[in-house]
């Protein structure tokens, strides 16, 4: 059975990992509904994984469809939430790179995630960066390395108990024993703490 540790960390996401493990078991037994709930639950994470590689929205949609169809063939091999999330992230990233390499699409040499964000027309950034807190966070993230930007963007969408599995799938383990902060979050906190605009 899944690790049912008390949800002391944060109540806004009460044991999302255990819930996904339960859905996984039901999906393996053929429940369309459970599989659909897993798709709804984890597609936003895979969207960010795929878009962070620089793919267009249309290509990202195709990658997600392919990844979920592949999962169905592997359901019997995957037994807990961490393994599921790790498998999905790894497969999405591999498939995204395959599409990048195959198409005539060219990745920009400088993989700055923030620079690659879609243009949503004039004024959109102002609408998004609503308040000062968000603006400061945005500015601090943009100072991080491209690797750290990618990791944090993706981790932020992962079920909490599975951070370590996601980071490992991205080639950036965040601690072998428990979920540690990792250098990307540490760096982000240092940047925010040193922001002169905070005063």
């Amino acid at each position, binding site marked *: 059975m899944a690790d049912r540790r008390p949800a002391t960390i*944060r109540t806004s996401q009460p044991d999302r990992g255990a819930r996904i493990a339960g859905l996984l078991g039901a999906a393996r037994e053929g429940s369309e509904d459970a599989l659909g709930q897993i798709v709804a639950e984890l597609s936003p994470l895979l*969207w960010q994984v795929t878009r962070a590689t620089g793919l267009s929205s249309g290509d990202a949609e195709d990658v997600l469809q392919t990844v979920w169809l592949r999962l169905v063939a592997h359901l019997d091999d995957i037994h807990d939430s961490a393994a599921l999330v790790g498998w999905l992230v790894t497969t999405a990233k591999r498939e995204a790179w395959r599409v990048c390499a195959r*198409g005539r699409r060219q990745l920009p040499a400088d993989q700055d995630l923030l620079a690659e964000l879609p243009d949503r027309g004039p004024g959109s950034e102002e609408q998004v960066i609503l308040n000062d807190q968000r603006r400061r966070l945005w500015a601090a993230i943009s100072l991080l390395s491209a690797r750290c930007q990618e990791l944090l963007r993706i981790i932020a969408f992962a079920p*909490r108990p599975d951070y370590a599995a996601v980071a490992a799938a991205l080639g950036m383990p965040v601690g072998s024993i428990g979920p*540690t*902060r990792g250098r990307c979050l*540490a760096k982000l906190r240092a940047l925010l703490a040193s922001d002169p605009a905070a005063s």
Partner: protein
Amino acid sequence: MTPPDPGHPPAADDPLDEADFGLLDGIRELFQAIDPMPADLPERIRFSLALRDLEIEMASLAEQDQLTVAARGTEQSRTITFDSDSLTIMIRIEANRDGTVRVDGWLAPPQRREIEMKTAADPLTAASDEQGRFAFARVPRGTAQLIVAPAARGPAGAGRSVVTPALIL
């Protein structure tokens, strides 16, 4: 820039704490606002997964071109190529005047096959000719998916349907 607070610099090896979770929540909100997943995508994926009990071979997107007819800027045609182990499927999608779309397709290697177009409404059927050509004259806009039925007999690729990802027409 002033240096970080020397008293308690956040260490990479420390366990995640409330401030980290707060930051991750903030990052998630930021990217949800800036680059949101299309809201109907999970529904379209479920649509694809409903086919999974068939004996299928998945074709994946190989190439996509969007051409705008220069003379009349509103008319567009889209060419999409899908590849699978045994088959390449190329389709060209053009808008009809009545709001539906026309889909012309080619199979390579050329062969006669039954072809089904799954749509949000009733499925449509067509058959390719000896040159591998097929056409759906009027397809409703929305989610659609092509299923090439198994070849009746033959040494290679027999017995398997080839299915494309769901696409939006």
